[in-house]
């Protein structure tokens, strides 16, 4: 094979050296170009700044992993180390041109999902803040889906146990539901909600009968009250009406006043007579005769007053303690 022309199987081209040289040259150029491209891709020709993230656990983080901002990779993990205080330090190289997205207030998170590696993310709320300095050390917040699952399962189990207890045949909830069903069943019956509340149809029947009786009673009471009204009107007419008790009383009082006036006059005459008697004791006989007549008059007047009072007492039955004060 080395002596191709001699073997006669293959004719060697004239520009053999050029062809092979071209092939090797192109290969070399591509290889060197690729090496430069890879160095460029790895950011060798780019000025970078370092951010060190401190995490409790670096699980899920690997060298070469991206740090993303708004879904765009802006940095790359270059080194993982365990610090003296037992915390993981994640060194990230961020190209200077992308460092403007990182500010002093930037929050870094590490999210671990079930599928795929972790995700380092940066959140900057205020892009007007001070830029993040080089060699800055920041804590990283972890969100671990896989770690959440056991906790979730534990809570879920407790909930399921509770549900199980609630739904067992002897559980209070099922007993309550039974009661509710019994009540609603009664409610659906002839006596409706009343039977549901009172427990049985008999009780509901009794309550209804009671209400009926109360209604009848109220009807009777209405009649009574009407009669009472009539009585009161009658009484009113009798007492206060024309010719009634009050009217008669008023008249009797006026009459009594007139009688008393007459009495006063009589007494005045007695006074005058007594004065006459005191002054002229000589005419005793005549005076004695007058006195007998006068006494008869006074007695007649007093009898009139006694009668009048009796009449008032008769006509005014409500006033028991009747008293006439004489002057």
């Amino acid at each position, binding site marked *: *094979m*080395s002596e*191709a022309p001699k073997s006669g199987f*293959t004719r*060697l*081209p004239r520009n*053999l*050296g050029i*062809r*092979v040289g071209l*092939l*090797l040259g*192109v*290969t070399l150029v*591509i*290889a060197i170009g*690729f*090496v430069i*491209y*890879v160095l*460029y*891709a*790895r*950011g060798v020709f780019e000025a970078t700044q370092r951010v060190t993230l401190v995490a409790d656990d670096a699980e899920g983080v690997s060298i*070469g992993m*991206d740090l993303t901002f708004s879904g765009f*990779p802006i940095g*790359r993990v270059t080194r993982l180390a365990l610090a003296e205080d037992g915390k993981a330090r994640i060194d990230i190289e961020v190209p200077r041109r992308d460092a403007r997205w990182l500010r002093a207030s930037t929050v870094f998170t590490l999210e671990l999902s079930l*599928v*795929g590696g972790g995700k380092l993310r940066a959140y900057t709320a205020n892009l007007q803040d001070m830029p993040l300095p080089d060699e800055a050390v920041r804590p990283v917040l972890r969100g671990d889906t896989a770690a959440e699952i056991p906790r979730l399962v534990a809570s879920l189990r407790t909930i399921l146990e509770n549900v199980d207890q609630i739904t067992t045949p002897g559980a209070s909830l099922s007993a309550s539901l039974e009661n509710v069903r019994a009540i609603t069943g009664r409610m659906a019956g002839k006596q409706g909600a009343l039977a549901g509340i009172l427990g049985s149809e008999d009780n509901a029947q009794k309550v209804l009968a009671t209400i009926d009786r109360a209604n009848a009673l109220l009807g009777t009471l209405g009649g009574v009250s009407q009669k009472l009204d009539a009585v009161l009107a009658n009484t009113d007419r009798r007492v206060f009406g024309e010719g009634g008790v009050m009217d008669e009383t008023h008249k009797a009082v006026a009459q009594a006043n007139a009688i008393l006036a007459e009495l006063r006059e009589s007494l005045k005459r007695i006074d005058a007579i007594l004065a006459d008697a005191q002054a002229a004791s000589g005419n005793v006989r005549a005076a004695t005769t007058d006195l007998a007549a006068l006494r008869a008059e006074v007695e007649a007047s007093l009898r009139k007053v006694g009668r009048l009072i009796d009449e008032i007492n008769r006509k005014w039955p409500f006033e028991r303690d009747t008293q006439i004060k004489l002057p």
Partner: protein
Amino acid sequence: MALSGAFLHGLRRWGGRLRFAGVATAATLTPASYGGTTRAVTVRQIYFTASQILPWYLLFSVLLSGVIMVIVIAVTRRYGLAQYALELLLRVLVLELIPLLTALFVALRSGAAIGTEIALMRVTGEISEREAAGDDLLRREYVPRIAAAALSVMSLTVLSCAAAMLLAYVAMYGASPWGFDHYTRIVGQVFGIPTFVGFGLKCLLFGFAVAVMPISAGLEAAHGQMKSAPVSVLGGMVRLFFLLGLIEILALAAKYI
């Protein structure tokens, strides 16, 4: 007794093969080995191994890569893992599959031919005669073939990997230039310094293996016994296949385990 004898015989033969591989590789890597004749033979060997077949091999490589890329991208998109498609393609296709296929291709095309040629030279007694005449067979016959095979494997690997990477870009982003940043970042992630050095070393080992193993097998043919030629070539090609597999396994193990 016979078993231990055969075992010792096998060990001796492997010792001889390894010694030959070491000597030949050292001579190939020594610039002083390349005299005028050696250089001319090397150029001819590279022409036959790589230049002549390059368009067809590139076409085959692009077709295979294209089919695999379309499948991988479609499947990863279906499962919502499209962000891993490019990395997967670069790692599997460019770093592993294409170099191994290239080495196997060169082994089939030139390794077998070299093995047969050396075996025939051994059977016909040409090697014994030239060695007796003081001819430096190592430099005149073996070094050019080993160097040519190694350079051919490297060259074909680099070119078909470059084609596959271009194709991966097109398969991923179409003709849009806006995927360049993302593509560059993934390339930066995949091709770390150890990966890069490992990739180069693996290609070099593949290149040496595809020539050294058939030559050492051809040298095992017996003088004057024509039937020993196919037996030694056959054994050499099987050993070459396993050696290539072993190099690949070791490279993978070193990288991922």
